[in-house]
């Protein structure tokens, strides 16, 4: 269970010595420092850590929305230089376009790529079906519940046909029951669509339930603290969450994070004090 960098070559996605800093109120803030990991094709990896450990920043770097301050990210051995090719981001808030119906929101990715053929429309309809929203193609986002909107958000990302799916706490705003259902759904969908997935969350049980591996991050500057391989059989039912193996995984990860959370609280207090000084 130690930090290890897989040899490059067979990795789908490889992150090498990644660092990110930015300026805020004339103070430099180092968000990520020297992050290294790789992800194999078809693997489901979660990233957990105390709030402020740079999880969302890491995802935005992987998507290419922001450039790294140091280091590099390789997809199939090619460096990532911007958004687009091979990746799609499932946003924390659903961020659907309110003036487009479900089908048209799901078709947004291919439309941006200027692919508007019959095949694209049929594929969009298939993904609407895959996320369980058949019959809602013509509904507008304001007519849907929060869980349904997140399904559209997921379908929109899948329909861009990414090789790596990036998910930024997509179930954080859902109620506990809906979240459980959506977790099971996500497992089914990523298995069916055979996607590599990177899932950011602060819910430990969610990370263990979904993942092949969980990467635990330290507080700012975020670094890889430990990687935990999850050896639970697949396909996983929700009942797996009550097994002793599952609980020992979550306990172990919680212990890793607890110390970080305490440090994060201390860090926040010190920052607040510095701001008032």
């Amino acid at each position, binding site marked *: 269970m130690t930090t290890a960098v897989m040899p490059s070559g067979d990795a789908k996605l490889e992150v090498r010595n990644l660092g990110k800093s930015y300026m805020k109120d004339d103070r430099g803030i180092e968000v990520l420092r020297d992050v290294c990991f790789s992800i194999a094709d078809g693997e489901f990896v979660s990233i957990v850590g105390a709030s402020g450990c740079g999880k969302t920043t890491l995802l935005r770097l992987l*998507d290419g929305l922001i450039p790294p301050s140091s280091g590099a990210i390789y997809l199939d051995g090619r460096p990532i230089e911007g*958004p687009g090719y091979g990746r799609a981001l499932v946003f924390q808030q659903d*961020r659907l376009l309110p*003036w487009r119906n479900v089908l048209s929101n799901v078709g947004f*990715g291919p439309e*941006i790529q200027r692919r508007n053929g019959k095949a694209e429309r049929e594929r969009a309809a298939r993904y609407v079906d895959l996320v369980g929203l058949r019959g809602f193609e013509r509904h507008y986002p304001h007519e849907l519940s929060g869980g349904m909107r997140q399904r559209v958000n997921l379908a929109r990302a899948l329909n861009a046909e990414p090789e790596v799916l990036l998910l930024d706490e997509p179930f954080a705003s859902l109620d506990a029951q809906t979240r459980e259902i959506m977790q099971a759904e996500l497992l089914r969908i990523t298995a069916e669509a055979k996607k590599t997935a990177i899932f950011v969350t602060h819910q430990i049980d969610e990370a263990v339930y979904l993942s092949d591996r969980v990467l635990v991050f330290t507080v700012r500057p975020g670094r890889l603290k430990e990687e935990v391989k999850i050896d639970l059989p697949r396909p996983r039912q929700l009942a797996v969450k009550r097994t002793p193996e599952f609980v020992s995984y979550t306990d172990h990860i919680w212990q890793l994070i607890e110390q970080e959370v305490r440090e994060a609280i201390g860090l926040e207090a010190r920052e607040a004090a510095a701001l008032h000084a």
Partner: protein
Amino acid sequence: MPDAVQVAQPRVEQRRRRMRIRLSGGLVRGAVSVLAAGALWEIAGRTFLNNPLFFAPLSAVLDKMGELWASGDLQVDIAVSFEEFIIGFILASIAGIGIGVVMASSKALCQYIDPWVSMLYATPFVAVAPLLVLWLGIGLAAHVAVVFIVVVFPVLINTYSGLANSDRDLIEVARSFGADQIQIFSKIRFPGALPFIVAGLRQGVARGLVGVVVAELFGSHAGLGYLILISGQEFDAAGLFVGILLFALAGIGVVEIVRVIERRIAPWRAQDGRS
């Protein structure tokens, strides 16, 4: 699995039905209110306001309207005013949206244009109307120009602020899918600004109708403003009210048309707005 899905369906339906009922209830009350006001008008005109120099009961106004219609004058007046309004309104909408887009897409151009917009928007347009009549003569050109000037600013300002307040989160979605600047504008910023633009058009309608009257009052040969002007000079209260009534109806009609358009292009907003 699709439990959540099946539960949500009737909820949407229910909400739609409730909205329809509320709408028809509102329609009935609105009609009652208008009819009651009409009756009050008639009674007032026949009793304590019984002086044809200053006031006319509703029936006399309708009689006068029939008379003007039979003579063919009213159709000419309506056609003239409508033409002035519609030409000025369409030109102002195109220019207002165009300039708003230009201002939103270039900070430098915006800074060049901004002082003029602020200055002209604050100028009482009634002060400009006689000048335009002086320059362009009595007729279509001057009246269209007045309508143009009063309509263009609300459209321009709303277009600009709609585009300036684009949703950054949605722009990021587009960027994430690899959109270029033109796509971000055409697929995120412009559709997002449409409700603002339509709101600007709605303000423009109200101001444009006032513009028609004022322009015609400063000099004209025909039009509803001309009818009001002549009737006023002849102490013909019924004729005055014909003009006023027709303007009011035109205002309601056009605002209603704009609202239908608004509901079509921005159903997610129309729902929380007035129904």
